[in-house]
């Protein structure tokens, strides 16, 4: 390829664009639907498992603008696949296909782009999805910050699965699959050049495997809500669920797991881990009878080893999240006000 940085011509549709598609995108995102190279990918749905006359698709999109592009535990490409895969998974859908749109700033080292594309391909394989459509635009230096990625995704919702933010019932238990705040604090400390004894690492992972094992382990209909607490953190996600379901939520501060390095960084910077973003976490609200099996299913999966029941849904104080503090007092946990940290995802 000519040169080792992205030029405006790489987005022009000419020879350099073709080179880029062939040597970077197609090489890494190798699948029949993409290789058709037509203006749109044509996808076969008649042979999807399980077959169903009542076929429901989940469809979502998200854009990724994280800075820096590479961080401990991931990069913008891994994030762009995980984020969309996880959004699909939170509807109980099995993620199938993604599109990927790249907005590249002129001058981005080609090696960086290739490394990011390779990371997307690896993550997609791990998540069981194919990247079947794509687009690249190159903009003048200064018109974007190195690289922005948009991914959209389609998934299949299995029959009998009905998971939504407004389905939490009083008495339901709330599960969380591990420590909070890892992603947000990793990005922030990278950007601020802060270092800690035990290094921080983003928790960015695709969660469909974990959701799949939950679905398999529990009776149909016993999972009421699934959410991934990304921007705004656990506190904001719980508030959204409380408001949507018009139910109260009560959680226990002492059981919410936070890594020491994350706590330390938060103490230092005056942040509350409850509001810090995650990229590999899910909140599951399940019927009380199913909670034990759900916890066991989470514990059996590599992304759920530290899963805990953090609280329950209440009839009292609908729309509000209340925290039992370490000292046994109760206080409100509000939504995130304004922006705690910019450009974390």
């Amino acid at each position: 390829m000519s040169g080792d940085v992205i030029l405006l011509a790489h987005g022009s549709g000419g020879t350099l664009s073709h080179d880029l598609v062939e040597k970077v995108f197609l090489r890494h995102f190798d699948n029949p639907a993409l290789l058709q190279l037509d203006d749109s990918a044509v996808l076969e749905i008649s042979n999807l498992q399980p077959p169903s006359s009542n076929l429901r698709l989940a469809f979502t999109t998200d854009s990724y603008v994280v800075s820096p592009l590479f961080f401990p535990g991931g990069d913008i490409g891994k994030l762009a696949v995980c984020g969309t895969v996880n959004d699909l998974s939170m509807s109980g859908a099995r993620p199938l296909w993604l599109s990927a749109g790249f907005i590249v700033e002129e001058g981005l080292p080609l090696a960086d782009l290739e490394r990011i594309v390779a990371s997307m391909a690896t993550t997609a394989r791990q998540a069981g999805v194919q990247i079947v459509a794509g687009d690249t635009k190159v903009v003048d230096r200064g018109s974007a910050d190195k690289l922005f990625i948009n991914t959209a995704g389609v998934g299949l919702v299995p029959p009998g699965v009905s998971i939504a933010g407004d389905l939490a019932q009083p008495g339901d238990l709330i599960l969380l699959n591990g420590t909070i705040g890892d992603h947000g604090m990793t990005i922030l400390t990278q950007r601020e050049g802060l270092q800690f004894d035990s290094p921080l690492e983003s928790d960015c992972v695709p969660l469909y495997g974990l959701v799949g094992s939950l679905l398999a382990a529990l009776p149909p209909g016993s999972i009421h809500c699934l959410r991934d607490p990304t921007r705004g953190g656990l506190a904001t996600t719980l508030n959204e669920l409380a408001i949507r379901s018009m139910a109260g939520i009560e959680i226990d501060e002492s059981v919410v797991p936070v890594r020491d390095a994350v706590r330390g960084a938060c103490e230092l910077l005056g942040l509350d881990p409850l509001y810090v973003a995650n990229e590999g976490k899910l909140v599951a609200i399940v019927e009380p009878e199913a909670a034990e099996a759900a916890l066991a299913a989470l514990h059996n999966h590599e992304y759920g080893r530290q899963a805990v029941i953090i609280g329950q849904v209440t009839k009292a104080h609908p729309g509000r999240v209340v925290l039992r503090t370490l000292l046994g007092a109760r206080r409100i946990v509000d939504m995130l006000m304004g922006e705690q940290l910019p450009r974390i995802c």
Partner: protein
Amino acid sequence: MKYVDEFRDPALARKLLARISSCSTRPMRLMEFCGGHTHAILRHGLRTLLPPTVELRSGPGCPVCVTANPDLDRAIALTQVPGLILTTFGDMVRVPGSSQSLQHAKAAGADVRMVYSTLDALRVARENPARPVVFLGVGFETTAPTIAAAILQAAAERLGNFSVLSLHKLTPPATRAILDAGEIALDGIIGPGHVTAIIGADAWQFLPTEYGMPVAVAGFEPLDILRAVADLVDMVQDSQPAVSNSYARSVTRQGNRAAMETMDRVFEVSAANWRGLGVVPASGLRLRPEFVQFDAAHLFEVDPGPTREHKGCRCGDVLRGTITPPACPLFGQACTPARPIGPCMVSAEGACAAYYQFGRDLP
């Protein structure tokens, strides 16, 4: 986590609470001077754990909140000086002045930049040698020394385009003003931990000596605060007012001499205008005449326009401790952190923001 968990130990907290409950036989009202304490108290739910005999009341210890509208308007007017860059700490940007906030001025094209330290402000000045760079200096004895150090640094570098609009305030005179006004009956004061790390615990000796008022200087972890409350309860019950120091890991009797000396080199004590308290003599810091070339108040003549106060806003009463935030009719209704009317709902140290965020309508 070391140095944190020890000060949040639930078992020790229960012991202290039991001691407070058993010792406080008569109702008492304690004022936490510092907004950082108000936030810690509400965040950890301490108000709900204390016995009904012990009432905590927030005081004026939020530097952003006590900045009076004329001063705020002056800072906003400064942004209209051609080419001027105004640097400030984050919370100040959102505080509404008489007619607008710095945030609004910024949206309309003013160059307002948030910085995390005065060193960042100096960097902005170095990078923009042709433009005047003003740092909006808001804070108590905790921040004033760092701003003094920045001015000394600017002098050493001959950084001719850097200046400070000093709205710094001193905490002991404000405490005195509240007690002298006699509007609110207090039995004890939780002394500000960070301020006292600078000025030293002895600086509060006038409270027991002249006012018979016990003081307990506290850190910002739950056990620090409970220990201070327990000390105050003992002193009140025994009628033995004194200065106790439950934050000995940071606070000494003499304070931080180097910081005080730096502050004294650059600043001199002057009257200051406090929201809620009005002009309090000898309660502020202005630049000494020999640093006049770094004094934005002297360098730029601006017209801040007429001062206006929001009719319903009771931030002044909250800052004097005469009401708690929920007693303000605007609280949580017209005034919320998303659409603040008064500064106490804006600042990370503001009492209204703390009550709203952690304590509103707790079921």
